[in-house]
């Protein structure tokens, strides 16, 4: 019975790589599901202020974003260094806000329109004058749910 040779000892058997594709696929699906593509390129500085009492924004499809901040270095020559509003991919003025949210609201189906939320992503250095103007425009557009986008962190103490 030469066929049943005794295993010669010495050297651990190599690890089987047969399950490697499975693992890779698992990771792949995980990242595919969790990934969120950035929809807009930010043209303004956006260092959000910190807060602790925050709530998660749910139903992304019902959220419209308004970015506020100083223009990034490459746009300063074009629009100046004062804080500006960015809607979608372009700089905008305060009076454009109303149209923007109304257009966004039109895209949501009618039953869910009252749930529409506007998320203001403003830089912490922006002055409240501009934010208040935006808020007035939102009131005029009758879009009353608002979310001030923040980072998680203590409000006072380190200003980092």
């Amino acid at each position, binding site marked *: 019975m030469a066929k049943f040779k005794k295993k010669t000892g010495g050297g651990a058997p190599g690890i089987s790589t047969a399950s490697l*594709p499975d693992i*890779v696929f698992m990771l792949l699906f995980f990242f595919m599901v969790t*990934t969120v593509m950035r929809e807009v390129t930010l043209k303004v500085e956006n260092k959000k202020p910190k807060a602790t009492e*925050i709530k998660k924004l749910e139903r992304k499809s019902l959220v419209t974003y308004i970015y506020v901040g100083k223009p990034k270095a490459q746009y300063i020559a074009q629009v100046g260094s004062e804080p500006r509003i960015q809607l979608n991919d372009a700089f905008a003025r305060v009076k454009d806000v109303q149209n923007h949210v109304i257009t966004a609201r039109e895209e949501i189906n009618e039953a869910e329109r009252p749930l529409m939320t506007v998320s203001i992503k403003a830089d*912490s250095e*922006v*002055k409240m004058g501009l934010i208040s103007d935006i808020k007035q425009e939102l009131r005029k557009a*009758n879009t009353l749910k608002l979310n001030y*986008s*923040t980072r998680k962190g203590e409000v006072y103490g380190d200003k980092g």
Partner: protein
Amino acid sequence: MADIAFLLLIFFLVTTTMDVDSGINRKLPPWNDEQVDPPPIKEKNIFTVLVNSKDQLLVEEEYMDIEQLRGAAKRFVNNNGDGSCDYCTGALRSPTSSVNPEKAIISLQNDRGTSYETYIAVQNELAAAYNELREELAQRRYGVSYKDLGEEARKEIQEAYPQKISEAEPVSLGN
């Protein structure tokens, strides 16, 4: 096959951004063309917070640091001035604070020059004051944390400490 999967995996690894959007939720008052006179509210039921363009706070006509705002707001709301609030622990009965949490209103006014950071800090502290009061009541009444309560109990506690923050339109408060 594994190679293609790897390629895709790396692509998604690079493009993924994990940040969840979160922030402070607020509701704006509806737009009114004509000026509506506000209903009369007793002075003692209003907790005024003013923020000027240098990001300084004036709370109830006194200069205050942002660190103290949360405590001051809690004391004001939890005052139980008329004794009708049986769950209020702040038995101060201060004549200048609110008569009960249902009547307490926090009025916030900022300057056009106030920085957004300070504004958010103030909003955050005021929200924190209410959240802490609710949390304390939940602990006393049910012995569990507010966020673990059922919907009904949560609503009950929300009504016990209704969050009433009124924002005035910004003016120039000067320096």
